[in-house]
């Protein structure tokens, strides 16, 4: 048996384990999906709401689509983020963290399996939300470049995986409250990335942070592709920064994770259940 086969089997072990967890917690999954769908619908109804409240003429159809893209893309990215930051948190909760971390596998194998599951889970979760939202609104996607939008979403996943891995070190460093600290990262990204409004309405200081948020490029790129129907080849200005951020954030995340693991082993922070 080659080392690669061993690592692949171990990586698949995380996928299989997470599928089993989702199946066993199916009631929670239904609740979570219901919450996500109603949340997205509530955001989308701001579009017609603004039209009804405003005295000026508002293109509420455009606004609805703008908000739906925001909520769907954000849902997709944040679900990946939360699955990744939960890589330690869920094992602390169950008490299995020591068992997993003493297995003879690389951290890359560990995180690759967990990430593969997170991406597929998030895609499925988002597809259901999109399907239900489309049922409530008469979405005109005749101009939309769906392939371009998908490309942006997938490329954006890479950099968000990096952000998720960086966030995952918090539960390693802070056993009691590390998981809750990850909310700070995601809420900051929500504020500055233009999920429900253009980044241009933000104060200059926050716009500066928006430049360094991968979500900014995923959202802008998706909107240009889906609202304006920009051709895929014209999306380079969004794809390139996302690829660069992914190429930087993923290795940095892995390095930081490994360093945090060593710190936890030096200070004895693995054993606490928090």
């Amino acid at each position, binding site marked *: 048996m080659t080392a690669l086969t061993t690592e692949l089997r171990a990586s698949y072990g995380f996928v299989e384990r997470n599928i089993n967890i989702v199946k066993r917690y199916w009631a929670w999954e239904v609740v979570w999906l219901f919450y996500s769908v109603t949340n997205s619908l509530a955001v989308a109804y701001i579009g017609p709401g603004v039209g009804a409240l405003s005295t000026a003429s508002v293109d509420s159809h455009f606004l609805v689509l703008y908000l739906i893209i925001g909520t769907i893309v954000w849902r997709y990215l944040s679900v990946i983020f939360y699955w990744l930051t939960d890589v330690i948190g869920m094992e602390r909760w169950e008490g299995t963290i020591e068992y997993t971390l*003493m297995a003879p596998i690389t951290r890359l194998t560990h995180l690759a399996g967990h990430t593969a599951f997170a991406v597929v889970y998030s895609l499925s979760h988002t597809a259901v939300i999109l399907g239900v939202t489309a049922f409530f609104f008469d979405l005109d996607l005749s101009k939309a470049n769906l392939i371009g939008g998908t490309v942006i979403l997938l490329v954006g996943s890479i950099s968000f995986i990096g952000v998720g891995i960086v966030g995952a070190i918090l539960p390693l460093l802070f056993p009691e409250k590390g998981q809750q600290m990850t909310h700070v990262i995601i809420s900051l990204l929500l504020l500055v990335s233009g999920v429900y409004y253009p980044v241009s309405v933000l104060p200059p200081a926050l716009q500066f942070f928006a430049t360094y948020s991968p979500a900014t490029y995923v959202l802008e790129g998706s909107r240009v592709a889906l609202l304006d129907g920009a051709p895929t080849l014209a999306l380079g200005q969004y794809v390139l920064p996302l690829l660069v951020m992914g190429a930087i954030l993923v290795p940095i995340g892995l390095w930081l994770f490994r360093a945090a693991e060593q710190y936890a082993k030096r200070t004895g922070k693995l054993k606490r259940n928090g």
Partner: protein
Amino acid sequence: MSTYPIALEIQNVSKSFNQSTWNPFKRNGATKPVVAVNDISIQVPRGEIFGVLGPNGSGKSTFIRLISTLLVPDTGHVTIFGHDILREERAVQRLINRVSVEAAFFKKLSPLENLMYGARLYGLSGAEARARIEAILKRLDLRADALNRPMEEMSRGMQQKVAIARAFLTAPILLLLDEPTTGLDPRSKREVQSLVRELRDTHAATIVLTTHDMGEADALCDRIAIIDDGRIVALDTPAGLKRLVKANGRAPTLEDVFMQLTGKQLVTEE
């Protein structure tokens, strides 16, 4: 399989923990580090069942965690079959497995799902893992109908059996057992003890066992170290340890040895 004659070598290993965390609203400052393991050195030859006895908080679990690659020693070296636990972590992890006192599982998952996860982490294929799981669980007398029920619905003893099965599944040549029979009924205890002997005899495995059960230590272990305050206060065969103490005219037991060698602690606590 490694033919290295020394399964475990620990040289001058110490481990301390800082108890305080910084808090801007408190003036407690740094507290004195707690020494969990204090300058321990031992050699365990291949094929030995090595027992570690000690009062609660004496450093037994820290000792096991250091060997398990879950803690980094402050000083000293640990090698397993010649592999340094820090420099060759992956090679060491392939040779060992551990059963801890608390049966740590994904509670909603079934024994089969938990064991499959454990087997995959060690590179076993699905078919290979399933065959081994069935054989081990049968050997441990775990009912077949329990295999697909969530772990949280099982008794502590049953959960501990699954934990033991998980460790045996990967056929480790150094098995670390941290109070593995705590919470098991007498029959289950005997089954586990017989399995431990079998693992040593048929797979040439080396076993490091911590326990509070003196009878178990006496029956299973070739040599026993008694730890107190993170230090080894005695190390010998069970018979050799018994020769160290007197028991008012009768033959001393391991419990007598334990009480006399760690008696200071009992007096302090009283």
